[in-house]
Each structure stands twice: as structure tokens, then as C-alpha cells.
């Protein structure tokens, strides 16, 4: 998917831009996500702990109740949500004033940026920018979503430490077409509360991100069978699952 299709013109974007944040609050079902210590159970009855969770959010756009859509300039629209660093839970953007009722974003890094010159890969996209482990050096491309942890369901014959590792990426390939796990999420904010963006106020769109959906989504993932999922066809099932983990809880205006 080439992102330029989303980049519809920002006509009508007059006046100054006002800060708006989108909060990615990682949870596990009805519990707050506790890295390393929390123990959770998937629908297959397998218990697991998560000790690493990171994912890219990019290409954010917001739609106002009057139908106007503002696309955040792409260079300012890449965020790496890292559970171990609470500061990174916010995607801070600037948008024109107004009442916003729809939020759209991508989980991952668009194919265009994945093929851009290294000089266009700054900030969280810089291989030296603290995003260690979110890039496949041997098969050029960003890892969109990475979750690791432990589970007794992981066969010791597969991994002696019984760790599971989901490293999900794949933007469609450069020299040959291959898997595309880029997911675009669009969320209606009406029920949970629209974002009222105006000067002097700070609106925060608070999303709950339920990592249990990574296992219990459209596909049921069994750690017994799929504990090491990286660049493989099965990664599409994990990506489809995590595309359902975002839920709008409320908006702080």
C-alpha cells in the first residue's frame, strides 16, 4: 500500500496548528499491561508473560465533524510506541482547530518510507535513534510490531528458554513482491468522545490497546504451534490480529 493515497489535500487547513495527542495505553484484557511480571492467559488456555512490546504508528490523519480531513505531514507522523518508556505512549501531532470525530493511522511504516533514501529516515526511523531491533538489516525493512515474552506453552525443543518472539513486518517487497502487513486503522471517536481541538486547550485521544488480541483475534494463535513468528506467511495472521487491538476509550478535552 502506497501511502500517498491517504495524503489527500489539506485544503481548508487554515490558521495555526494546535497540539493534539493520541495515547496508546497498552493493556491485557481487563488488566494494565505489566511488562515482565503480569501473567495472562489466551483463549487456548496458554499462560504467558510479555517482557518486550514496541510498535510503529505512522501516517496519522484526523477527520472533523464537518467532513474535513487533515493529514499530518508525513515527516512528523512516525511514532515508536515502546511499553518500557512511558513517554513514548503519546503520539504528539499538530492539527487545525475543530471537532474531530475520526482518527486514522497506520500500524507500521509505509512502503514508500521503507524504500526511501537513508537521509529520510530520521528520528524513530534512524537505525541509530534508539529503535534497535525494529529493522531487518538483512532484508531491508522496518519491523512494525514486536512483542516478546515467555510461556510454558512454548516447546523447550523450539526455544530452551521458552520465549516467544513475534517480529512482524513486511511492506510488500522492493526487488520482488512479497507479504504486506501494513495495517491502516480507522476509529470513530463519536461514542467515546470527539476531540475538541482549540488554542489554549489540549485534547488527548485515549486509546486502549489490548495485546491479548494478538493471540485472540480473527485467528486464534497457539504458542504451542507458533512461538517464533517473524518474516513468514503466518505473520499475516498475527498482523490481522493486532489490527483489532485498538479501541477508543475516551477523549480528554
Amino acid at each position: 500500500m502506497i501511502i500517498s493515497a491517504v495524503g489527500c489535500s489539506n485544503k481548508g487547513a487554515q490558521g495555526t496548528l494546535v497540539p493534539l495527542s493520541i495515547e496508546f495505553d497498552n493493556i491485557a484484557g481487563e488488566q494494565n499491561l505489566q511488562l515482565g511480571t503480569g501473567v495472562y492467559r489466551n483463549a487456548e488456555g496458554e499462560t504467558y508473560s510479555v517482557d518486550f512490546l514496541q510498535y510503529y504508528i505512522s501516517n496519522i490523519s484526523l477527520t472533523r465533524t464537518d467532513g474535513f480531513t487533515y493529514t499530518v505531514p508525513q515527516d512528523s507522523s512516525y511514532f515508536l510506541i515502546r511499553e518500557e518508556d512511558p513517554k513514548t505512549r503519546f503520539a504528539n501531532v499538530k492539527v487545525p482547530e475543530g471537532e474531530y470525530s475520526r482518527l486514522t493511522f497506520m500500524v507500521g511504516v509505509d512502503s514508500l518510507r521503507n524504500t526511501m533514501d537513508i537521509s529520510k529516515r530520521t528520528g524513530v526511523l534512524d537505525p541509530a535513534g534508539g529503535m534497535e531491533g525494529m529493522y531487518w538489516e538483512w532484508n531491508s525493512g522496518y519491523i512494525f510490531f514486536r512483542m516478546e515474552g515467555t510461556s510454558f506453552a512454548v516447546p523447550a525443543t523450539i526455544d530452551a528458554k521458552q520465549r516467544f518472539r513475534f517480529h512482524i513486518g513486511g511492506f510488500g517487497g522492493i526487488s520482488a513482491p512479497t507479504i504486506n502487513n501494513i495495517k491502516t486503522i480507522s476509529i470513530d471517536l463519536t461514542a467515546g468522545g470527539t476531540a475538541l481541538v482549540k488554542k489554549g486547550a489540549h485534547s488527548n485521544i485515549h486509546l486502549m490497546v489490548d495485546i491479548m488480541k494478538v493471540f485472540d483475534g480473527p485467528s486464534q494463535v497457539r504458542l504451542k504451534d507458533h512461538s517464533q513468528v517473524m518474516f513468514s506467511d503466518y505473520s499475516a495472521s498475527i498482523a490481522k490480529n493486532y489490527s483489532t487491538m485498538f479501541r477508543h476509550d475516551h477523549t480528554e478535552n
Partner: protein
Amino acid sequence: MCNVCSVCIAFLMILLLGCGAGNKEGQFHPFVIPANFPPPSYRFKDNKITQAGFTLGRKLFYDPRLSRNNTISCGSCHIQSAAFTQHGHDVSHGIDDRLGTRNSPPIMNLAWSATLMWDGGISDLDLQPLAPISNHVEMDDNMENIIRKIRSDPEYPGLFKKAYRTDDITTTRVLKALSQFMLMCVSSHSKYDSVMRKEGGVTFNVDEQDGYFIYQQKCAACHAEPLFTDLSFRNIGLRVTAVKDPGRYAVTLKSSDRYKFRVPSLRNLAYTAPYMHDGRYLTITAVLNHYTDLVQLIRGIDPLLIRKGRPGITMTQEDKRKLVAFLNTLNDQQFVRDPLLSPQ
């Protein structure tokens, strides 16, 4: 002047410089497109080669600081005297005496290589160094750490300032400087090149000429002139080993790409033994014997290697002898000795 004109003039200048061969040994010269080579695929507009950038890139290329414990440089596995391969090693020998699973490919004519690595996993030379730097059996480090090390070195900030007019050391500047050095590793001064460019009345002898004909019949469909590779990925019926390296499949996940590897160039074979993606054949004779006698009829084998339902290429001993005579005209002594490309 229109852009097209200026591009043409720049191109002509490059050609003229290329014909001159008047470069003093070891002295920097602009990037040259050899007269018998096609236009390069590298995007030079995003990385103009300068003397200062090249010099910085060369220092980085030979600097073991690019590895976790400062023991392995790019030049450790890409040795100039071995045409920038790791001569004598079947698979690359990296940090802490760890071994990889593939044979170090040459740093040679990369400006013409739209994809890199044995499986084509990388399509941009500027991103290529990230792979060995991060690989746990090669250099086992990361860019963040390398940049920290380089910043604290007394020499580098000055070299970056010369190359980029700023001593701010970034990922982009490190990688682009490395590209500048690697792009200058052009091998185009073999006897073959002289014959093709009609330089100084150089001609093939009878065996070489016969060998050239055999090459054209038996090898050129994949090892195409003048780079001696068509840059494609092919399954040549190598016996699958315990490593079960899936080759190109790892990048495309297409089952038809299983056990396909890049067609390597035939240039500089005298310096680059052993051969194949895993260095299994120690001599050229062994490689030629593979094609005549050892090609396995495995799934996905390249159709060019099947004749009348049987795998392999027909060649007599005499054909092989002449073919080797021709292949030896592809060795480029100037390239493996050029002081410009050596550690300083």
C-alpha cells in the same frame, strides 16, 4: 542549459576521464563509468562522490570500531588482495571466531548492482552495511554504539567536517561515506576489458578466444557481459546441505525461489576462491565439474541447466581448459593492488 544537456556533458566528462587512464596510482579520481559498462544503477544524485567523502568512507571501511569489540572491520571479510572477499574461507569468519553461513561476496562494481547479498535482501547500497554491522556472527554491533565510538575519536569529527561541512556524525553520513568508498571499487582493467575497449592493441590468444566462444555458448545466459552476471537469482542444482540455506526464498517467501542465489560475477575468480554461496568448491575446476557432472535435478532448478531431461552443461576437458584460459582474462590485477582502495 537544460538539465538533460548538463547530464550529457557530465556523462561525457566521466567517459573522457575514463579513457585517459592518466590517474596517478593511489590518487583520488572521480568515479568513472568504464567505456564498456552500462549506466550504473546507484542513485549518485543522492550521494555525490567527493575526495573527502571517499577518504572518510575508506577509513570507516577499514575501521574495526564498526564491530562490538573493535576487532572486525569491513575489510576483515572483504580483503582487497582477494578482490574484496575473504580468500580461503568457505563462509565468513567474524567476531569472536564465529562463522557465518555464506561466502563473503566481493565489493566490486556495486554501482551496477541493483540488489545486494546472495539472496538480494537489500536493494540500496547505503543500507547494506547495517546488515554485517548488526549480524551476531559478523560485527555484532549497532549504529547507535558505532556513532558513539566514532564521535569520541579525535580524528573523525574533522574528517566528517571535510566531507560534509559539519562534524555532526549521523547514520546517513556514515553510511553514505561507506557507499562512496565501495562505489569506487570498480574492477574494469582486466585483459578482457582491454580487448573489448581495444586498448593498446591487446588481443586474446587462441585459447582465450576459443574460451570466449565457449563462454558465450555455455555461460553467458546467466553470467552476462560486461559485469559477468545478469544479477538474477537462480537455482543451479547444488546439493542441499545440512544448513538448508533457503536462499532467495527467505526474502520473497515464494516457494519457487527456494535455493536460488545470486548469479555471481566471473570477474577476478583467481583471487576469490572458494566459490558458490557457501564456498563449497575450492577451485574453478570443481565449479566446472559441478556444471558437467554434479548438477542435482532438484525442484526449482534453472531450466537453462536442463538439456534433454538431464541436468548439467556439456563440456569436454578441452572445452574446460579453454574456458579457464578465457576466465583468466577476467582477472584484474590493477583492482586488487590499487593503493587508492587499500588501508592507509
